[in-house]
């Protein structure tokens, strides 16, 4: 079992963006692989459609957004969330640029699934997502060449 497994959920043949999940992580309870396996058909489709919108460059604040410099003192500008309002669920993650030969290529790596407990943003969840940005295992898995050939990068 890998220490860390990142799995691309959106289509990797898109030239500009992709959405990936932290499917396994040895040092964390974050295991979106299991969460995705257990999603109902409708909820899974909802997220896949949202990923598609984001990867395709569409704007849809009802489904996903980040936080700008003026929010939370600019602490979460790399964090990102995919929302499922009807299920009161959120997928938190962060934006990164994992292709050294293509600095414009952007990935949203989702690391945390949470049930929305209150209307306002739960900064505790954002902090958890933010803490994974510099996780060494994740950074290594993001550099795994198989991430972009097989859709899975691991350490």
């Amino acid at each position, binding site marked *: 079992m890998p220490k860390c497994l990142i799995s691309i959920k959106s289509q990797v*043949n898109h*030239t500009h*963006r992709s959405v990936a999940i932290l499917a396994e992580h040895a040092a964390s309870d974050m295991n979106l692989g299991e969460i995705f396996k257990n999603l109902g058909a409708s909820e899974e*489709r909802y997220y896949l*459609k949202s990923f*598609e*919108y984001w990867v395709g460059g*569409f*704007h849809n604040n009802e489904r996903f957004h980040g936080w700008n410099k003026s929010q939370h003192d600019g602490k979460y500008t790399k964090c990102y969330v995919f929302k499922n309002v009807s299920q009161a669920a959120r997928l938190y993650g962060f934006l990164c640029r994992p292709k050294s030969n293509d600095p414009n290529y952007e990935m949203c790596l989702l690391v945390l699934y949470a049930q929305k407990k209150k209307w306002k943003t739960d900064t505790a969840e954002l902090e958890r997502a933010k803490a994974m940005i510099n996780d060494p295992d994740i950074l290594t898995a993001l550099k795994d060449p198989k991430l972009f050939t097989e*859709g899975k990068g691991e350490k």
Partner: protein
Amino acid sequence: MTTTTGHWTHRSPEDFLYSIAADFIEQLRAKMKKLHMTQSKLARSANVSKSYVSQVFNDPGNLSLVTIVKFANAVGMKVSLVGYEDHSPAHAGSGPINSEIFRLCWEAAGKPADMWDIQAKPTVQTTAALDVYLRDGIEWGWDVFRRTGNNQPRNHTGNHLTQMHAFQVIDSKNTESSVQEVHQ
């Protein structure tokens, strides 16, 4: 450019249907937002129950063509069913083109209504519409058109300058003047 798996909409007709219905619902949602229309009002206007509206907004996979027409009428939209071929290798792992892309391209082409309109200076009209976009600094629209119209890779900045609804504002007078400028 690599592919790991087929697109999720290729798994089943239900997945495909969900995808295209969700695109319509997003267009509908955007229009309702513009009109400040609630789901209850939509239900009344379309003569369906509020719970049904809520249900299809949450899970559009069960949306029927009749309901789509009712919803479109209720918000003053028209709706078309578009069939197309797409053999582009770049789209091999992709799902159906989002209906919003078709709408944007149709508007960028000067909203042709029939084959006569298509034959009447299509290139100039398209260039003129793009000119309007660019002049207004709407980078994203240009980006979408280039990718969908000419199938060229873009230099992605990661920054989007505008919301999609900005593209709904195409002034036909501006478009006309741009056509003239192109001729000059």
